[in-house]
C-alpha cells in the first residue's frame, strides 16, 4: 500500500463519525477520488484549513485495491479560496463549480483539462467577485469537455447557417434549431448569447471578463449549459435553485 502524492482540489466534504471527514477531491494525476481524513474535524487537526471546499492542495494518500475510499494522510495548502467564500454570492459560484465537477467526472479518470478549468474559474471568481460570466465559461466548457455540446453554427434539423436571429435549444433534443425548425417549449439563446458561446470556446476567460457583458446572454448560456449537464447526470443540481435566485436578484 504505497503512499501516493498528487496535486488536488477539494470538491466537498462531509462529517464522518466522531471527528472525521469524508472528502471528495479531484486529483490531477488520479482523477476524482473520495477519502477519509481521520480527526479532520477536531480543533488540533493536522489538516487545518486544507480540506475546505476548492482548496488547491498537495495531498498524500493511501489507496487500497479492495476499498472505494482512500486514506488521506497529509495535505499541504497551495492556494486557498476560503476568503472568497466569505462572500455568499462568490461562495455560491464556487459551490456550483464544485458540484458540477463532482457530478460529471467519473472516479479514477484523470482530467487535466477539468482540473485547469476549475482553477481558472475559481481564480476569476476570486479576482472579480462576479459569478455569472465565470460560471457561463465553466459550464459551457464542462459541456464541451463532456462531449455534449452541439455545433453552434448551423441548425441541427435543416442545416441552415445561423444568422442574426436567436436559436432554440432543449436538452431533450440533440443540437440547436433555427426559428423555422424549433419546437414548442424550447429555450431561446439570443444572437448575443450565441456570440458569447463562440467566444468562450476560443478566448481566455480573463479577456472576456474585461468586457462588460449584459446579464441576459450570460444567464441564457448558464441556463442552457446547466440544462445539458442535468440531462446528462439525470438529476437536478442542488445549487442551481440558489444560483438562479441569486442571478435573478442581480438583474
Amino acid at each position: 500500500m504505497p503512499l501516493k502524492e498528487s496535486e488536488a482540489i477539494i470538491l466537498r466534504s462531509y462529517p464522518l463519525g466522531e471527528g472525521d471527514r469524508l472528502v471528495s477531491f479531484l486529483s490531477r494525476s488520479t482523477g476524482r477520488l473520495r477519502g477519509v481524513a481521520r480527526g479532520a474535524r477536531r480543533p488540533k487537526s493536522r489538516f487545518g484549513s486544507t480540506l475546505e471546499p476548492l482548496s488547491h492542495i498537495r495531498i498524500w494518500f493511501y489507496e487500497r485495491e479492495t476499498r472505494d475510499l482512500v486514506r488521506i494522510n497529509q495535505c499541504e495548502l497551495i492556494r486557498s479560496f476560503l476568503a472568497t467564500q466569505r462572500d455568499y454570492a462568490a461562495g455560491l459560484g464556487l459551490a456550483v463549480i464544485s458540484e458540477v465537477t463532482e457530478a460529471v467526472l467519473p472516479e479514477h479518470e484523470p482530467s487535466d483539462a477539468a482540473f485547469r478549468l476549475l482553477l481558472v474559474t475559481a481564480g476569476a471568481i476570486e479576482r472579480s467577485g462576479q459569478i455569472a460570466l465565470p460560471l457561463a465559461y465553466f459550464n459551457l466548457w464542462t459541456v464541451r469537455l463532456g462531449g455534449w455540446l452541439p455545433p453552434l453554427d448551423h441548425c441541427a434539423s435543416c442545416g441552415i447557417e445561423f444568422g442574426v436571429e436567436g436559436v432554440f435549444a432543449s436538452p431533450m433534443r440533440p443540437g440547436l434549431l433555427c426559428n423555422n425548425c424549433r419546437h414548442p417549449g424550447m429555450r431561446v439563446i439570443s444572437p448575443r448569447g450565441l456570440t458569447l458561446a463562440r467566444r468562450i470556446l476560443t478566448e481566455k476567460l480573463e479577456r472576456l471578463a474585461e468586457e462588460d457583458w449584459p446579464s441576459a446572454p450570460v444567464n441564457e448560456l448558464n441556463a442552457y449549459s446547466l440544462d445539458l449537464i442535468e440531462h446528462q447526470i439525470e438529476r437536478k443540481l442542488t445549487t442551481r435553485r440558489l444560483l438562479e435566485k441569486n442571478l435573478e436578484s442581480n438583474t
Partner: protein
Amino acid sequence: MPDFAAPIARLIDELKHLPGIGQKTAQRLAYHLLRASPEGALALAEAIRNAKEKIRECSVCNNITDTDPCLYCTNPARNRKTICVVEEPNNILAVEKTRHYSGLYHVLGGALAPLQGVGPEQLKIKSLIERLKNGAVEEIIIATNPTAEGEATAVYLSKLLKPLGVRVTRIGVGIPVGSDLEFADEVTMLKAMEGRRDI
C-alpha cells in the same frame, strides 16, 4: 438481511439510520440490547420516546428544550444585551462550558451551504432580526464554525445586522491552545494574525 430473525433485522435496520453507525456496529448494538435485561432495553426505548415527545424548539432562540421558552431565555440572571449566534443547539454546550458567557443564544439551524441547498431563507435569520427590534440587544456574537460555510454565514449576518445599529463581533479563529505554530497552515496562521489583540 435473511440471516436474522425479522425483529432483529428491523432493529439493526433502525440502528443503521443513526449517524456513524454501519451494518457491523448496528449488529453489535442490536445483540448488546438483546443480551441486556428487559428493563435496561425498555428504559432506553422509553427514554427515546420521552425525548421525542417532550423536546421541541424554543420559540425565541430555536434551542431544543422541554419548556418553551427555554431555560436560557427565561433565566432572569442572564445578560439580555448580548446574543450569541450558533449553527446548531449542541454548539450552545460548547460555549456554556467556558462559564464565561452569560448572555442569550440564537440557533440558526445550520449555515449557508449551497452544496446542501441551504440558502439564507433556510436559516432562522428573520427571528433573529425580530429579537433586535426592541433595541435591548447591544451585541451579537457570531459563533458559527470556522469553516467556509460558517465564515460565509458570519459575513452575511454581519452585513444584515450592522445597519440595525447593533455591535457585531465574531469569535476568535486561529491557533488552538496546546498546538504548535510549526504545524499551522497558512490560512489558520493568517486568521490568528488578523485576530491578534493587545495584552
